[in-house]
């Protein structure tokens, strides 16, 4: 090989190349000849035919955008609607002087600076013959005023369109989210063909997560246009396929009760059916009116929402991460049993102080002097810190975080929303990655045992975890949407949500111990009184986490509620009925003095509203009242009745339909 290479025949190669280059060039000329022949065929042989088609070319396809799917609660109460509205559109080509036209039009129909800015942005991206929306959602008055002055503005037209409306406003703002105008970034990620003629896209919440389901497919019509591009008549119409309707597992009545229970105090609550992962209520307080965002929110409104001190735009349930405090204790106890580190009858002496050998600073119990000798049930009931300090140490941080991660602490629960927060589950890996490479200290394990330290948990995570616990350890992905209905389908189709894995609990008797402990919290512990007057047995656990780390070991002597509320986060987690759990909930108050006293009643009120729905029980798998299903997507409701009335109306239909349900 080497020998042959050294005899590389450069002169011969050069000649070979020349022959090839000439051959290649001849092939290229031949191909160009072919191309010219084709152009000759089109431009000379068939010129007359194409010239005729060109002059008669007057048929254009025009996209018809699909109607967006509607969103209902589990009983068919309308939560997101399409309502007809009118907007002003401008055809840039026909405007000789845009600035003059806009200022003249402004005297007829008031134009905000926001409208003009958005219009100019879109104008820059559009072709001159595409009409560009100028002002969305015209009022009656504006339409009338324009109609009178119409002759002055040949380039402007009032065009009907469907806009999104959320009849319940702030109640579902964080869950359903909102749609808003498609912007330039959206055009990069969306399929332009599917969004021809569509002006809005799901921006947040379910509107965004289920965009593919809700959007539908555009149709088109072939329209005949004249030389000015104006429509003469429609030749053929292929109708669009409307988006699918969504049915939430949330019950409007429970959602309302949950919001009311907060009495305006910032916080969040999540209620989940432990038997299937269906979310029954999910609220973040305070909220905002999503309708403001649909047709472009004004700068003043937007600033007011963004800079409000209680951050109404922030979804605390989904994204807010808070130290969980004592709410993690039942899970830790269960881990102790499952790993065989503790038996239920094992006792610990609580003296009020727990010290690691060789350390000066000690860890305290909540009560001065401690709780004495406690077993597991008693330790959960009294929330005895010493018991859990020792348990955490005996488990070790690795087993502790491995166990807790199975409840989705420190990771996304997988709910059908985007932007979920992950919180923090303390572990060696987490600390090494985020805090320092110094390694893990035993003291950190100790405080992890009572839900302090690096811990951070979202209300959704805790709700999901307590639901998993209540469901005897069987994990489900939390789901807000339980069913969809495509246009033409008679009934909504249930979305399957099988367990996401095997039960986390190996020994069923372990569950009974934890259940007994959480019952004891309600009967004799911090949650005393929460069950009073409630038809089912409640099991629960409070948590009061410190917002700031302690600066001294001194006991806090200031017992004023306002003082404590400024320092504490109040949690309560519970499920009911304790013997056969059907609902689990977690509530958080951002500023609450004590978990049980402040967050406990919120959970109780959610349970009350749930119990009210159980008087006329609906099967959890097919609870939809088919008879009362509203008109198909795309149609427009005649009136805008208060929704309370509708949900009451839905009741009889619900019971009458339960006969033909399975």
């Amino acid at each position: 090989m080497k020998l042959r290479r050294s005899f590389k025949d450069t002169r011969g190669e050069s000649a070979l190349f020349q022959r090839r280059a000439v051959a290649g060039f001849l092939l290229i000329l031949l191909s160009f000849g072919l191309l010219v022949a084709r152009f000759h065929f089109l431009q000379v042989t068939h010129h007359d035919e194409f010239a005729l088609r060109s002059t008669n070319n007057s048929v254009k396809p025009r996209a018809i955008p699909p109607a967006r799917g509607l969103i209902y609660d589990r009983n068919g109460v309308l939560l997101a609607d399409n309502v007809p509205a009118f907007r002003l559109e401008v055809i840039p080509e026909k405007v000789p002087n845009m600035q003059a036209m806009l200022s003249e039009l402004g005297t007829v129909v008031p134009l905000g600076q926001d409208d003009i800015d958005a219009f100019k942005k879109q104008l820059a991206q559009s072709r001159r013959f595409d009409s560009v929306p100028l002002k969305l959602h015209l009022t009656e008055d504006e339409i009338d005023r324009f109609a009178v002055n119409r002759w002055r503005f040949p380039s402007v037209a009032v065009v009907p369109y469907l806009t999104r409306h959320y009849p319940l406003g702030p109640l579902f703002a964080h869950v359903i989210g909102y749609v808003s105008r498609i912007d330039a970034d959206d055009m990069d990620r969306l399929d332009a063909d599917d969004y021809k003629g569509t002006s809005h896209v799901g921006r947040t919440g379910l509107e965004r997560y289920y965009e593919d389901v809700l959007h539908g497919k555009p149709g088109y019509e072939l329209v005949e246009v004249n030389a000015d591009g104006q429509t003469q008549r429609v030749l053929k119409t292929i109708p669009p396929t409307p988006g699918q309707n969504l049915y939430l597992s949330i019950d409007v009545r429970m959602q309302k009760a949950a919001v009311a229970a907060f009495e305006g105090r910032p916080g969040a609550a999540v209620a989940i059916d432990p038997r299937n992962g269906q979310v029954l209520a999910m609220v973040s307080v305070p909220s905002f009116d999503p309708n403001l965002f649909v047709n472009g929110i004004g700068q003043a409104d937007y600033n007011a929402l963004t800079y409000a001190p209680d951050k109404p735009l922030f979804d605390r349930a989904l994204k807010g991460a808070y130290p969980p405090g004592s709410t993690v204790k039942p899970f830790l106890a269960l881990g102790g049993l499952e790993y065989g580190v503790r038996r239920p009858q094992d006792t610990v002496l609580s003296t009020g102080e727990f010290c690691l050998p060789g350390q000066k600073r000690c860890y305290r119990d909540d009560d001065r002097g401690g709780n004495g000798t406690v077993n597991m049930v008693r330790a959960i009931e009294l929330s005895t810190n010493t018991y859990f300090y020792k348990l955490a140490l005996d488990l070790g941080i690795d087993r502790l975080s491995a166990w807790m991660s199975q409840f989705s602490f420190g990771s996304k629960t997988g709910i059908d929303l985007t932007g979920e927060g992950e919180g923090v589950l303390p572990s060696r890996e987490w600390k090494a990655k985020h805090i320092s490479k110094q390694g893990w200290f035993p003291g950190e394990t100790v405080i992890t045992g009572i839900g302090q330290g690096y811990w951070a948990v979202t209300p959704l995570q805790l709700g999901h975890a307590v639901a998993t616990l209540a469901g005897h350890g069987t994990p489900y992905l939390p789901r807000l949407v339980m069913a969809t209905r495509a246009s033409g389908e008679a009934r909504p189709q249930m979305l399957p949500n099988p367990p996401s894995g095997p039960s986390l609990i190996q020994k069923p008797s372990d569950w009974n111990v934890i259940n007994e402990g959480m019952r004891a919290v309600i009967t004799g512990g911090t949650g005393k009184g929460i069950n009073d007057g409630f038809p089912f047995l409640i099991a629960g656990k409070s948590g009061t986490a410190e917002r700031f780390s302690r600066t001294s070991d001194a006991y806090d002597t200031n017992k004023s509620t306002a003082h404590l509320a400024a320092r504490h986060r109040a949690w309560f987690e519970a499920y009911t009925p304790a013997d056969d759990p059907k609902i689990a909930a977690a509530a958080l108050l951002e500023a609450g003095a004590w978990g049980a006293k402040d967050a406990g009643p919120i959970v109780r009120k959610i349970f009350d509203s749930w119990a009210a729905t159980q008087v006329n029980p609906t099967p959890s798998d097919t609870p939809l009242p088919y008879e009362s299903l509203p008109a198909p997507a795309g149609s427009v409701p005649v009136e805008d009745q208060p929704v309370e009335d509708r949900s009451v109306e839905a009741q009889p239909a619900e019971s009458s339909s339960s006969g033909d349900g399975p």
Partner: protein
Amino acid sequence: MIDTMAIRMQRFLRRILTRPRIDLPLAAALFLLAGVGLVTLYSASDSSMAMVGGQAARFVLGAALLLLISRIPPSMLRNWTPWLYLASTAFLVVVAVLGEGRGANRWLNLGVMRFQPSELLKLTMPMMVAWYLHPRQLPPSWKDSAVVGLLIAIPVALIAKQPDLGTALLVAAAGAFALFLSGMAWWRIGLIVAAVGGMIPVAWHFLHQYQRDRVLTLLNPESDPLGNGWHIIQSQIAVGSGGMFGKGFQQSTQSRLDFLPEHTTDFIFAVFSEEFGLVGVIALIVLYAFIIGRCLWIAMEARDTYSRLLAGALGMSFFVYVFVNGGMVAGMLPVVGVPMPMISYGGTSAVSLLVGFGVLMSIHANRKMHE
């Protein structure tokens, strides 16, 4: 230190400007082509000076790069070749892993700008094939041909997967032309063509549904009135109605009344055909043929195998642009995203084409000394 650098830089720039090492006939043809491109764009974009200006800016950038690269001797390019090829292929892998784009992963976001790594392969692919064949006995053995086949197949598969069939085709062609020019026996070429032909049913299986639709739409354009079928029908009406002498500058009704989609980019040649007729089409194709012929002439005069193969392959791949885009506009070939060189608006293709011509200029400057 900095002073001497600055002085060197100054000298270098002065040399580029005062004694450019360019081939005048080729440069003149490119200049003419750029002019035709801008005039056509002015009409197709509805007299948008913003678009014409943007395109002119791209030409200026491309011309600057052309002058710069024409100063780099081919021997230096040859030394860099394997690294350039590896780097551009590595970029493709990165794009495959974390690229972004409209439905297709072909862009790499560098923070400051986004670029399409597949564009690099249009140049580095023929360079690599030429580099590999340069020290070897030609015509190439089966083994060498197989290695070249592999060098071509890996990046092409990555590009086709993005999916960007148009660029994959251009890159594959650039590599294949280098192999063809190296003197591979005709019967072997015949065998490979036959094998590729036999693979078509298999390849069909691997195409995306939308790619199959494009081919099927070509056979029956009426089946897809909103998408590609519409493009094909309207493009043919535009071309056909142009006739022998065309409707005249800025008289393209198809484009003006918005019947012809993409009329500044992929379908701009239809606007040209409508306005300037068959006469214009033939004139433009003659100009393209002249450029390709001149490239091959430069290749024949080149000093060594590497330069020869590279120059020839670059010239011949220029032909693929014209043929595929022209065939698409005339309803002969399916709709694939291949621009008409120097005429279609936008993209990085105008710049990368001129960079390729920069390499040709350098090869020309370092040609064999006659007599």
